[in-house]
């Protein structure tokens, strides 16, 4: 076994152990055995092959109906983008963990070359961290195209596309890691990153609408031009139109650019990998940085909220996931609102239902526990009980739900002119989001390990994820349904009473089986 492969296996196993911090065996992980290539990839390959077959099938069907290859380019291109996204995200997350735990540093004192270490990181990413499995998003559709069209050139161009996109994914992953210290320091960059993350989360959602419209277009000069110069579509265009110099040329240029991106981002990232991002990126700025004085104050019950909000605000990835849960209800009614301009008859009931659907926040409050990170064992040493931590963490939701509720009530007031309905909207939104958040946090805190050293991100996932999702979905459904029913009955202002009672009962039930003891208890 080469040093590179050995390193890849060590990195892969170490990352899994650090994220789980448990010696508990499972089908996918046995701490006493070397990491298994097939166990690590098989389930994901099946999961990724499914959308590939579905999208591929739809596009091939359209191709057979119309004879135009554009749906094939569009479908395969979309899967290519998805593959790059999945691979890039995996690489960024794992490299971040390598940096955070400073796993590369001990290797510096050993007779191992930097290229071997990099090889190990890349190979581990490729074989064990999801890059290899992401290929399953593309391959089934390529097989379908070959089977239906008999075009063998698509195999070659798809291989080139996968290779180029993988190089780009590593480049983006390394670049994202290299840029993260700058992002942490700049509020503007943090804001931009959160918006990018949110767009990435809803990209599939929007693409669905684009796909619905674009798939109907079977011939378009503009679309052809766009596809022939834009990756990854240009790779596929070469297979269907081999004489088109424009596509071939752009494929070569883009491939070269992706290689340059990888080289550039590798250079930026290596220092952080070897010495940790804070040391690597803070050294040059020492002495010139202006120190902004912060007052140390006892914020009482709000102390937790300020701490969590600060940590969240500085971790764009966590903040985006959290915001996604908060803003998710809007996505539910977005298709309704788009195209209806401002029709109060449609908007008002939608907003009424939305005010009861804020339980989606409950799905994302786990981020408030994840954000504790490696400092979580500190919580065990403080005079705090599980219930108290859950309560104080859920206070983070209050200001957010207040803003959200006020927006909804403003829309309700503008569309109906009814002040009571607007207030009901506000109360519903605040009560539902705070109530579900507190319930979810109590459940999470209840299940956290009682030994500090056993705490890991995995321990949050152990805390009855399925139960949490079921309760959240139930709360979303019951909340929005009851709000809608009261709205239809023209007695919307009664809905807060029912929703408050429902939330109270849910929380009393969950609270009753959560002991008021510290995390160690």
């Amino acid at each position, binding site marked *: 076994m080469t040093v590179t492969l050995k390193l890849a296996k060590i990195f892969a196993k170490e990352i899994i152990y650090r994220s789980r911090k448990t010696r508990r065996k499972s089908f996918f992980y046995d701490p006493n055995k070397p990491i298994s290539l097939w166990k690590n990839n098989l389930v994901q390959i099946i999961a990724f092959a499914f959308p590939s077959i579905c999208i591929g099938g739809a596009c091939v069907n359209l191709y057979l109906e119309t004879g135009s290859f554009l749906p094939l380019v569009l479908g395969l291109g979309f899967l290519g983008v998805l593959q790059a996204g999945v691979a890039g995200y995996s690489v960024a997350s794992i490299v971040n963990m390598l940096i955070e735990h400073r796993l590369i540093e001990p290797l510096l004192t050993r007779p191992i070359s930097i290229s071997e270490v990099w090889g190990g990181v890349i190979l581990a990413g490729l074989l064990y961290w999801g890059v290899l499995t992401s290929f399953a998003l593309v391959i089934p559709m390529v097989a379908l195209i070959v089977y239906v069209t008999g075009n063998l050139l698509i195999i070659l161009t798809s291989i080139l596309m996968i290779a180029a996109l993988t190089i780009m994914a590593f480049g983006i992953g390394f670049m994202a890691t290299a840029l993260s210290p700058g992002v942490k320091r700049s509020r503007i960059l943090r804001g931009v990153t959160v918006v990018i993350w949110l767009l990435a989360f809803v990209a599939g959602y929007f693409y669905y609408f684009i796909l619905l419209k674009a798939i109907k277009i079977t011939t378009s000069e503009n679309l052809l031009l766009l596809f022939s110069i834009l990756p990854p579509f240009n790779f596929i265009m070469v297979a269907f139109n081999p004489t088109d110099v424009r596509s071939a040329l752009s494929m070569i240029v883009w491939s070269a650019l992706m290689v340059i991106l990888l080289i550039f981002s590798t250079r930026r990232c290596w220092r952080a990998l070897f010495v940790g991002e804070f040391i690597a990126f803070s050294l040059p700025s020492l002495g010139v940085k202006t120190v902004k004085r912060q007052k140390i104050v006892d*914020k009482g019950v709000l102390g937790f909220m300020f*701490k969590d909000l600060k940590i969240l605000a500085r*971790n764009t990835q966590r903040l985006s996931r959290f915001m996604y849960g908060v803003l998710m209800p809007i996505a539910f009614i977005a298709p309704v609102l788009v195209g209806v301009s401002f029709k109060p008859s449609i908007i008002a009931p939608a907003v009424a239902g939305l005010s009861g659907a804020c339980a989606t926040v409950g799905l994302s409050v786990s981020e408030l526990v994840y954000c504790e990170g490696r400092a979580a064992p*500190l919580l065990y*040493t403080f005079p705090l009980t599980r219930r108290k931590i859950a309560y104080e963490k859920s206070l983070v939701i209050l200001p957010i739900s207040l803003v959200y509720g006020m927006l909804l009530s403003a829309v309700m007031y503008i569309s109906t002119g009814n002040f009571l309905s607007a207030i009901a909207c506000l109360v519903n939104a605040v009560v539902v989001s705070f109530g579900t958040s507190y319930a979810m946090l109590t459940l999470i805190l209840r299940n956290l390990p009682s030994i500090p050293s056993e705490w890991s991100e995995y321990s949050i996932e152990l805390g009855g994820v399925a139960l949490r999702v079921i309760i959240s979905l139930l709360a979303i459904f019951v909340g929005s349904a009851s709000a809608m029913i009261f709205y239809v009955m023209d007695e919307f202002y009664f809905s807060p009473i029912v929703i408050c009672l429902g939330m109270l009962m849910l929380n009393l039930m969950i609270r009753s089986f959560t002991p008021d003891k510290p995390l160690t208890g």
Partner: protein
Amino acid sequence: MPIEFRGVYKTYDGVIALEDVSLEIPSGKVCALLGPNGSGKSTLMKIALGLVKPDAGTVSVNGLDPFKEPIRVRRIVGYVPEEITLYESLTPAEYLSFVASVYGIEDPESRALKLAELFEFTEHMYKLGGELSHGNRRKLMIISALMHDPKVLIFDEPFSGLDPTSGKVLKELLREYASRGRTVLLSTHILELAEAIADRVIVIHKGRVVAEGDVDELKKLTRRKEFEDVFFEVTGLSKDLDEMLKALKEV
């Protein structure tokens, strides 16, 4: 007694960490726990705080059982863990604000700044935790443990990574706390340090208390002049050490 251990046993996966430990840590004295790596010092300290549950035996801190009244115990204890854990994306000022909120500290600003000045930490108060060096992280842990002016100090290897000035300050501070009638329990590997600072020394080896008393008492008891020799004598490591030194010549 402020801290009392009675017949404490603890095992990890069948390996004995503590075996029948009975100890009394008085107030008004600096007590140092000494022992080789893995002797059970940290486990004993964690048990006193209620972080690790013993398999058998009882513990009390100022008359409180850390497992029955953990919140009250944590309110009166200032604890510095051996392994430093901190929020890397919070500045020390932000972290100390959080600590102040948890304990409800009066005028936390002046308390924190006083402590920061003492440890020459003021200039680091507004940097991100992740940017702090190992020594400065340790200082932050010590400052945060002292923020609520605890009645009982449990410091696990507090001198590790500290510069000589801060080390000296910490020594004086621990003595000062003890002279005010507080309980001070610390662990260290540095024998000279224990000799210099501790009024009472407790030596633990393989989970058992093998010696207890002040340094002079132990020297008399073992008829040794150097405290280092006392340590090797009571732990029974002197024989191992002789063999190791012999083997060293063969390397």
